[in-house]
């Protein structure tokens, strides 16, 4: 039997040889990074690193369907035999989860020395930079500014029934915000809030950009999204605006989420990983992200930024630790998946 099929098998395999052998290439300086920051902002920075350091960057970007969660799951799956050298996360909760699972390795970039203590791990497992906030976005042509709810908890009011939109709460910074509420309010109150959102007809869309687009279209009047998505909409002339929720006395504050960067344990290219991390946590990168359409807030004072990017110290941040958020991610995620059939 083998003799019957072997001639055809050999011919067909020969046709595949160019594809197979093409995988063998010359060794060159390279680094592999998984990043969940929007490609629009991360790709130019990685290209700049390539140019400055003569080091090829092999990037894997997230997809809207699963955002950070998809990349984190891949990193967990590859623990012990990682493809990635660096993980550049657009949020912080999943980074801490990776640290808890032993996926990260410490590093000490010189450019991170002046990052405030609350935005970096004391042992050097991760560093935060270029933050954004979870805000309430509204259609400014359909909702007068004085009527915009000032707290995320007000989105369950009957007035907004069927008019509030939210990104998939299982993924991305929406998941982070839900976990933060779980940690801040406690599981019982958080569940009651999530149920109230559901009963009030909250519209679930794939992600933060979709939230912005739904509100800009007027299909929904309000939504929860990130500041960079709102700024991108404003730059493109969309009729959207935002408020930083829960800023009043006695209120819980707005969730502020930094980008985080970390080195992967067992990275195939550890030295290049250190170089890339040193580059990413530099002042220049925070300035670039502040001046980009994303308008991300530098975590360090004294970093150059445009005047319309608020000082981080001027925003009342939600009084919940990143560690508590990381611990709440699984429980809140499981509840929300069941509630919204995810």
């Amino acid at each position, binding site marked *: 039997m083998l003799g019957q099929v072997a001639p055809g098998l050999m011919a067909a395999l020969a*046709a595949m040889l160019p*594809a197979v052998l093409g995988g063998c290439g010359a060794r060159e300086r390279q680094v592999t990074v998984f990043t969940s920051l929007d490609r629009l902002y991360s790709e130019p920075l990685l290209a700049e690193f390539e140019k400055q350091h003569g080091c090829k960057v092999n990037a894997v970007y997230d*997809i*809207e369907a699963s955002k950070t969660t998809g990349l984190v799951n891949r990193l967990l799956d590859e623990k012990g035999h990682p493809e990635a050298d660096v993980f550049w996360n657009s949020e912080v909760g999943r980074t801490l989860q990776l640290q808890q699972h032993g996926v990260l390795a410490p590093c000490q970039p010189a450019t991170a020395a002046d990052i405030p203590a609350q935005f970096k791990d004391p042992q050097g497992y991760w560093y935060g930079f270029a933050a954004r906030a979870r805000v309430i976005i509204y259609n400014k042509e359909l909702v007068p500014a004085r009527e915009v709810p000032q707290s995320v908890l007000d989105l369950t009011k009957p007035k907004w029934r069927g008019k509030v939109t939210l990104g998939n709460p299982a993924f991305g910074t929406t998941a982070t915000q839900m976990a933060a509420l779980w940690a801040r309010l406690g599981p019982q109150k958080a569940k009651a809030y999530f149920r109230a959102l559901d009963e009030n007809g909250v519209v679930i869309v794939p992600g933060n950009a979709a939230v912005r687009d739904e509100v800009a279209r*007027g299909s929904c009047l309000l939504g929860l999204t990130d500041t960079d998505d709102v700024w991108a909409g404003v730059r*493109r002339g969309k009729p959207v605006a935002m408020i930083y929720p829960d800023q009043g006395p006695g209120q819980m504050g707005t969730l502020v989420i930094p980008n985080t960067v970390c080195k992967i344990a067992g990275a195939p290219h550890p030295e290049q990983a250190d170089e890339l991390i040193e580059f990413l946590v530099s002042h220049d990168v925070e300035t670039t992200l502040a001046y980009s359409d994303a308008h991300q807030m530098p975590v360090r004072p004294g970093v150059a930024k445009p005047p319309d990017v608020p000082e981080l110290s001027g925003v009342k941040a939600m009084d919940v630790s990143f560690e508590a958020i990381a611990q709440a991610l699984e429980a809140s995620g499981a509840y929300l998946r069941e509630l919204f059939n995810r």
Partner: protein
Amino acid sequence: MKCYLARSRWLYGFLAVFVLLAVAPVLAALAQSVVVDGHLSLDGYRTALGQRQGLLLARTVGVGAGAAGVGLLLGVPLGLLISRTNAAGRRLWWLLCFVPLILPPYVMAVTWLELLDPQGAVNRMLVEVLHLVPGPLSPKGPAVAAVSLGLSLWPVVAIVTGAAARTIAPELEDAARLEASPWGVIRRVTLPLIAPAVLAAALFVFLLGITDLGTADVLYVRVYTTEVLALYTGSLDPSAGAAAAVPLTAVALLAALATYMVARRWEVGGLWQRDVGRYDLGRWRLPAGVLCAGVLAAVLAGPLAMLLSLAGGAGSYRTALASCPRPLANSLLYAALATALAAVLALPIAYMLARPGGRGRRLAALAAGLPVAVPAALLGLGFLIIWNRPWLFGGLEAAQRWPLMPLCFAALSAPFAIGAVAAVLAQIEVSLEEDALLAGASLSQLGRYVVIPLARRGILAGAAIVFILGMREWAASVIIRPPGGDTLAVQLFELLHYGAEELVAALAVILVVITLVPVGLMGLLWRRGD
């Protein structure tokens, strides 16, 4: 009548490679649905198959059926008008029928998203003309997805309708004309004779509609394909994603089986013209041509104009080209390699399908049909399970695993190439091969000097299809892409969700133009075969 080449051992070797490449990953991915942490378990099904399965199934089937309906509504009249009448400008309209097939369905969906925006051109026109406030049309929902897919895939029905109409035995219509008017002949003879082919084409559009991911993703419609991708990429356990694909695969296999059974009744089969004559429309020749032009303008001009309008001026294209050299190079490389591989595999397997006498004919038919009936993301998952082993591609450095991409592209689109070649081979008389053998040709000479030259047009058509599909492939790519291995389609999709409309539109135009160049070359080679 025996067909000696069909019994050649070489053919089984090619079939074995195709099974390894395209069928084994599908089976591996489906098997993954019952494996959790290395143990047999139904947890994946418990996660994936929640309470709203009925709604998900109804939505998925509805999108596919709607696409097929639009395909029939547009494809049958246009196919008949262009292929069987002397409507003015029919050659140009025939060429334009292929344009929607080159435009990726998700690009078409992007344009409809903009056109049907509450502040978009269509709603503004309706508000101004009909005084409807607010604009009545919405870019959301399964209906829009169905229409968008239908507008992308209707040429399949038109092409098959035209091909079937030109292979009718002329004496049947001639006899009918003795008693009936031309319209009566069409109604009572032509349409019933081509009905199996048209129905098979509609079922095929349905199949493509339910397994499409891009359009549903762009239009935020939750169907099985989006569910599979979200569950696989968003969960540590891939069994949930695989489990979510099982209901869809079952529906798709039923549709594929129905297509096969209906197509078998199409006795006239094939793509080649007979001298069946054209209906003389007389004074209606020009109006018929205008009607064709109007329909094509409505379904093509609007989306294309929106795309070009979104892309803006030269600055957008410069920015787009500056952002995509590596993804563009990757796309061209993967698509070209996939085309070469698919062409090598398609001919021998198509020969087994088209020729009687071979023992592997049923197996070849089953193998060729299976990859079409599953979501591309599932095939990507299966590819990782089989090919990403440490002793295969998994043992290479991450950036060196890029050959997985063209292999996966070939697996996804080779069935279409097989179908194109088989359709051509079915028209070639077996007696030509027997004559060559009687003249003393060996089997390899028979293949090289008789079969391949005669099947040349089918090979070119198949190659064009594989290249087009490879350039726009997205769903499996996001699963298996190695670091640095993104394609233009993947980049386009990622930027789409960030709201970079100008850049997305410019990239889409670049994607279409780049795809057209090799396809145009293949078209020239096709014409040189006359």
